[in-house]
């Protein structure tokens, strides 16, 4: 109890001090660029928990979720194929490396050309930009599964599907999730950028528009909303990861590996 209290105090003092400092330092601010925090929070409450929730926030979250999930599905499936077949991997390696190294936002003009401005273009950019980290990590993870584990699966005569489902994918799990985490960060960047450049709704669209029309309070408010959403997405991801990889943490603890 005492330890928990001490930890809470240690963790909380700095954020609290920083927030209070921001609140009071900006309270009487007349600067155009640094409006009072109270006004910003007011805008967050009245706008983002009000009309913008349906108009901008939900579309953004929907596009992000569908693009990211599609990318993860493709990444694991293709990564699995490449991990299982060294020849396929050798054949695709130069292309995959090139596409992976391409800073994804440069695809925006191509996306606009193919899909025009709108939802499908935003989703396309997310999928195409964020799939690579997961794909490569899955391929590496599958390829790196211990030879003994493979032999064991073979001598138990597991079918191919059983081998994939119960041996290869779980064994590669931590590495797949590391890739998915990188993909997540790229996907968050891409939803914001793709909305800034090619959308007529969404938080990214709104935040850039408010800046261009010098609605400074709105820019601050939307930036805070974006930050909170990025934080929540990571939180959800970590929960899912913890649940899916729970067996692994348990095993590491019991065998005291590493």
């Amino acid at each position, binding site marked *: 109890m005492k330890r928990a209290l001490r930890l809470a105090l*240690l*963790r*909380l003092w*700095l*954020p609290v001090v*920083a927030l209070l400092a921001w609140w009071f330092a900006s309270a009487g601010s007349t600067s155009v*660029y640094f409006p009072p925090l109270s006004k910003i929070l007011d805008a967050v409450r009245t706008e983002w928990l009000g009309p913008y929730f349906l108009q901008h926030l939900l579309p953004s979250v929907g596009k992000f979720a569908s693009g990211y999930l599609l990318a993860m599905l493709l990444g694991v499936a293709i990564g699995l194929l490449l991990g299982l077949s*060294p*020849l396929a991997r*050798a*054949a*695709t*390696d*130069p292309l995959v*490396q*090139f*596409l*992976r*190294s*391409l*800073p994804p*936002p*440069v695809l925006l*003009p*191509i996306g*606009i*050309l193919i899909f025009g401005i709108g939802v499908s273009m935003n989703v396309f950019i997310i999928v195409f930009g964020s799939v690579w980290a997961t794909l490569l*990590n899955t391929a*590496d*993870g599958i*390829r*790196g599964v211990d*030879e003994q584990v493979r032999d064991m699966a073979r001598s138990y005569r597991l079918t191919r599907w059983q081998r994939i489902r119960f041996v290869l994918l779980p064994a590669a799990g*931590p*590495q797949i*999730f*590391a890739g998915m985490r*990188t993909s997540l*960060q790229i996907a*968050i*960047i891409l939803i*914001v*950028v793709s909305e*800034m*450049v090619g959308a007529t709704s969404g938080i*990214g669209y709104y*935040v*850039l528009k*408010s*800046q261009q029309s*010098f609605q400074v309070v709105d*820019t601050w408010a939307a930036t805070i909303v974006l*930050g909170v959403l*990025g*934080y929540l*997405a*990571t939180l959800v991801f970590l929960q899912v990861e913890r649940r899916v990889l729970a067996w692994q*943490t348990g095993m*590491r603890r019991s065998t005291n590996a*590493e």
Partner: protein
Amino acid sequence: MTSSALSYASRSGLASTRARRRRVGARTRVLVGAASVAFVILLWQTASVAGWLPSTVVPSADAVFIALGSELASGTFWGEVGLTMSSSMLGLLIVLVIATPLSLAIGRSEFVRESLWIPLEFLKPIPPVALIPLTLLLWGPSPTMKLFLVVFGSLWPLLTQMIYGVREVSGVALSMARSYRLGWWLTTSRIVIPSLLPFTATGLRVSAAIALIISVVTEMVAGAPGIGQAITLAQTGGQLPSMYALIVAAGLLGLAVNAAFRVIDRFLLFWHASQRTAA
């Protein structure tokens, strides 16, 4: 948290050594890879010539490669590359200067670690591009603004890796150093830095990729000069072949950055297991 530490370790070391057993020979790999690249380019060209790809969306391969050739021969292009690269690399240097003392302080002091826990966990997942409008308000499309975003975006991978690294410094080795009275300099140079280096190398490589992405985005969205701005200009000017050529060039730039950091890894970590088996 532990699982990502494990996977980082296995990505750099364990997995790659094991994987080498089942591998297509190096020469076959290069041949098959080159053949498939040639095949894709050929397919692209055929599709354009046959009219399956509308030229208003995707220009033919030869047009793009001719445009790429003339870009590579022009001084403006290299000037743009220089602007993009210099802000990425300068940003990376600043990141290294921030992350080194910060990770040591976080690794060594419980007070620092717990005090910074909430701020860091909150700042980390904020998409750096979300700050573009705010930084535009504050600085306009200037080098300062680009640098700020690059530093903000690429700090986290390196910092996270280095914090893992500081945590991995063996307690036994440190007590031994203390009983041998090695002193601060010997302890740091012989024990802390060697165990920190592999993590720093991985972190730097990820951070470098992100730094490049942020530079390009800032140039595209905010209009700071550089290769990203060149792409946007080619797009608005309707010069499709040079737009595609610049995109290909951006990909090659990404590949080059990645390769350069791999060489640095090998140079700094020649003694480490992951590099020794690779040789």
